[in-house]
């Protein structure tokens, strides 16, 4: 029943923010940010279970561990970038948020570089020699 706790926390925070915003917009933002951080960390702990399942899956089917590492890194990058971007967006800095997302996308794409390298080498190796 953690979802009830989380939703309750969210509702209370929302009401508090609505009350406080008139007087101190700064505190309203801080409240939102810290609530978001709390929920994020709380849920990150839960993700561990999913990751364990993924690892088992990879183990049993003999996928090279490098794939799993890459995938987990991608997930982590996506989550962290998303979270940071949302907090910044809450503060009203849409442009900074989009830059954070941009950085996340670039990092995810960079993850693909070794894989692309291997594939390209294979494809070139498939072609007859001399090309």
């Amino acid at each position, binding site marked *: 029943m953690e979802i009830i706790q989380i939703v309750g926390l969210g509702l209370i925070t929302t009401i508090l923010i609505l009350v406080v915003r008139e007087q101190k917009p700064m505190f309203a933002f801080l409240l939102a940010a810290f609530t978001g951080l709390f929920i994020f960390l709380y849920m990150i702990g839960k*993700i561990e279970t*999913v990751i364990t399942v*993924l690892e088992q*899956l*990879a183990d*049993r*089917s*003999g*996928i*090279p561990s*490098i*794939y*799993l*590492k*890459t*995938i987990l890194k*991608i*997930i982590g990058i*996506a*989550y962290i*970038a*998303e*979270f940071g971007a949302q907090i910044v967006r809450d503060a009203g800095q849409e442009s900074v948020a989009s830059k954070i*997302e941009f950085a*996340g*996308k670039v990092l*995810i*794409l*960079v*993850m*693909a*570089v*070794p*894989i*692309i*390298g*291997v*594939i390209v*080498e*294979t494809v070139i*190796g*498939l072609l007859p020699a001399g090309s």
Partner: protein
Amino acid sequence: MLAWLAAWLKQIIAVVLLAGLIDLLLPNQTMQRYVRLIAGLIILLTLLSPIIRLLQGDYDTQLNASFDNWLKASPPKEYRMPTLEDIQRDAEALKRKQELAAAALTEKQLASAMKEALERGTGLKVSSVSVRLAGTSKTDAASVQTVEVTLDSMGGAPDESPGAASGGEGEAGTASGGEGDEGKASGLEGGADAGEIQPVESVDSVSVFVQVDTNRVNGSDSGQPVSEGYAPVEGRAAEAVRRVLSEGWSVPPGVVSVRMASSDGAGAGAAPD
């Protein structure tokens, strides 16, 4: 064959499942296209794995190596702000380098001026003059520590046998010390115009030693110049050389050593002491 096929299929299924899971795990739509691309690449790699293995052996190690390279290459790229100490150290090093360069230039000019004056004043053929200065910092007074004059063996004065007077040179070498400071002051006005640059010692276009310790004024200095292939020169020629140097640059005669290239190898036997 069947077992291998089963393993391959299992791998493909697992990767596809994995890709589906991360698609679910993803937080929002913005990242989805990018992650899907990479998941697709991984699936493609898995599908291709038999071909890859056929073509280039163990691509796993290759993939691992490229990942490791990529992961290892990133940390060194992070650059940090230089601290004040770093900057000061750099400045110190630069200053030292500059001083050394200035010293080299000064000593070169000094040596060439000396050579010219010697050739004019004594009529001897001087093949090279090397000046070694003591004192390297700007606040230090630079003094002429040793002057080494190499005469051309053809032009050298033949009135003395090379080894004959080598003992005298050894005593003469003890004289430098305090006079060296005056020698530098007046020597610089005669030689190079760079009065504020002290550490100068040049071996004519060969090499340059700047020596810091001013204590080395005892007899050991005079022993140095006599090296392989050179014979010390004393007598009239050496006196003439010393006179010119002490008149032009106030170099104390004790620090001047005169030698000539000995073609017959007599220099080895003629070493003083």
